[in-house]
């Protein structure tokens, strides 16, 4: 596995005015250098974009739902209505410093293609997703015998937008397969706290409720 470094980059992130930001958003925002240009794919209500803009980052968003877009524009954010699966092809190479895919990977039709597009459009990509290897998920399937449902993923199997669940282990394998370099990897537990770093890898896959990864293109010839 290609995880070399597991730092917790929350320092340097100035405390926000309300203190209300989601812990995964604060983690993602901490991975972005101030002054850079960022595209948030599947930006929802724009909470992450707002956090980024408050740090002097030039943020843009794509959001599928009309309601989400309207709320973003009402917040003064530059957000367009669009679909990660079909619209990313329209973005030129190297258009952004970072492209963020926060809690959206599992809802895309072609996660691999989307991931490749992220690293074509941006120099770096930040991807966070719910970990299907989380122990509660495993337990529900193993003991309960039904498709897992959690507080963060409350939809039933037949009416969920999430069609491509994966585990942290699966995602790391996908990154290896398409030759993506993992610069940082963090697993967050149920309370949004990072899983201790000195624990073995399988613990992450078991006790991380979500994974957050900072990726960059693997340098050619290495």
């Amino acid at each position, binding site marked *: 596995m290609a995880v070399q470094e597991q730092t917790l980059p929350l320092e340097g992130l100035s405390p926000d005015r309300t203190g209300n930001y989601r812990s995964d958003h604060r983690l993602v925002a901490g991975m972005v250098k101030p002054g850079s240009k960022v595209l948030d794919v599947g930006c929802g209500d724009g909470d992450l974009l707002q956090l980024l803009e408050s740090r002097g980052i*030039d943020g*843009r968003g794509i959001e599928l739902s*009309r309601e989400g*877009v*309207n709320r*973003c*524009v*009402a*917040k*003064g*954010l*530059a*957000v*367009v*209505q*669009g679909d990660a699966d079909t*619209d990313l092809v*329209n*973005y*030129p190479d190297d*258009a952004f410093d970072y492209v963020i895919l926060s809690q959206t990977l599992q809802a895309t039709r072609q996660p691999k293609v989307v991931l490749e597009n992220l690293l074509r459009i941006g120099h770096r990509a930040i991807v966070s997703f719910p970990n299907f290897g989380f122990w509660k998920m495993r337990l529900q399937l193993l003991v309960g015998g039904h498709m897992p449902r959690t507080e963060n993923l409350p939809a039933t199997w037949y009416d969920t937008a999430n069609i491509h669940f994966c585990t942290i282990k699966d995602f790391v394998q996908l990154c290896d397969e398409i030759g993506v370099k993992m610069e940082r990897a963090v697993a967050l537990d149920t309370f949004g706290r990072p899983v201790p770093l000195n624990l073995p890898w399988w613990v992450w896959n078991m006790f991380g409720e979500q994974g957050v990864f900072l990726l960059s293109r693997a340098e050619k010839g290495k």
Partner: protein
Amino acid sequence: MADVQSIASPAIQAEDRAHEVDHPTSQVAKFGLNEPLKLDCGVDLAPFQIAYQTYGELNADRSNAVLMCHALTLDQHVANIHPVTGKPGWWESMVGPGRPLDTNQYFVICANVIGGCMGSTGPASTNPATGKPWGLEFPVVTIPDMVRAQAMLLDRLGIDTLFCVVGGSMGGMQVLQWTAAYPERVFSALPIACSTRHSAQNIAFHELGRQAVMADPNWYQGRYTEHDTLPHRGLAVARMAAHITYLSDAALHRKFGRRMQDRELPTFSFDADFQVESYLRYQGSSFVERFDANSYLYLTRAMDYFDIAADHDGVLAQAFRGIKTRFCVVSFTSDWLFPTSESRALVHALNASSARVSFAEIETDKGHDAFLLDVPEFFDISRAFLQSAGKARGLPGG
């Protein structure tokens, strides 16, 4: 009998309108022989004049000017009583104190387009060479020509940079032309229910309207004024057809359904039995009272010719390369004249140009006309966009 011959009664305000053509009640900027308007067709138009209205106050550093671009058959009377119809301005819901385009904050300018008939030089204006109306001798104008004339007006007013350019439909085309032609003069842009090019279907509808005007025996090759008449039937039919394209099936159904007008049973004639028929006839005849038939030909033609990518080897993104202007593109779900797909193509091009763009599709069954109607979600978005742009521009209250 309310047959098609009686749908229009043009005499009522014809004199008022004729007076407005050369001597508008609004402000006028006159450009002499030494300041010609260079038209795309190759003609230098001089002298010419631009009639315009302003609302609010220009601030000390001249940074709060908003240019309002009007749609096809509208004019400069955005938020005041119309001198010909006596009706309120066409966008009073949008422009005024406390409105999304707050005239306590912004200096709003709206000019009648070149080729129009409310005081800017157009085919109904008096040709100084002949002393008669220009008619078809007026050169064909384009959207870029309209924008070039507006830029000359702003130079005259001493306004270098616009805080925002706003407009829907043909006005939206002007907004896009402004950002493509003068990107450094436009801080933000709000193009609504428009497109970067007029589609074949839209051209087809315009051709239908023009043919209706030109088929009217009173048209006289555009010389109807000299025959002391108007092609009012043709123009009314053109307006009726166009009006249908501005609405949606759902809006028409909600408003009229198949309800009858002042009767229980069909008359088995071609009277306006249905409410929707008498509504359209009313729309047609009231339009004839305020609009010039030749001007309708010229302005529809200007829209037909519009294709912003054509000037950039067909690559739309090239038109906006490196642009700093902040955009908010708005479309409406039930608009079939300028459908959302056209706005989306624009947004893709702007994204590819790395422009700061927002895009919202507003859900409504009101059709293309929705931008002129009371759609709170649209007002909310416009207000939010203008406020955030104002903040970035350093405007007080932004």
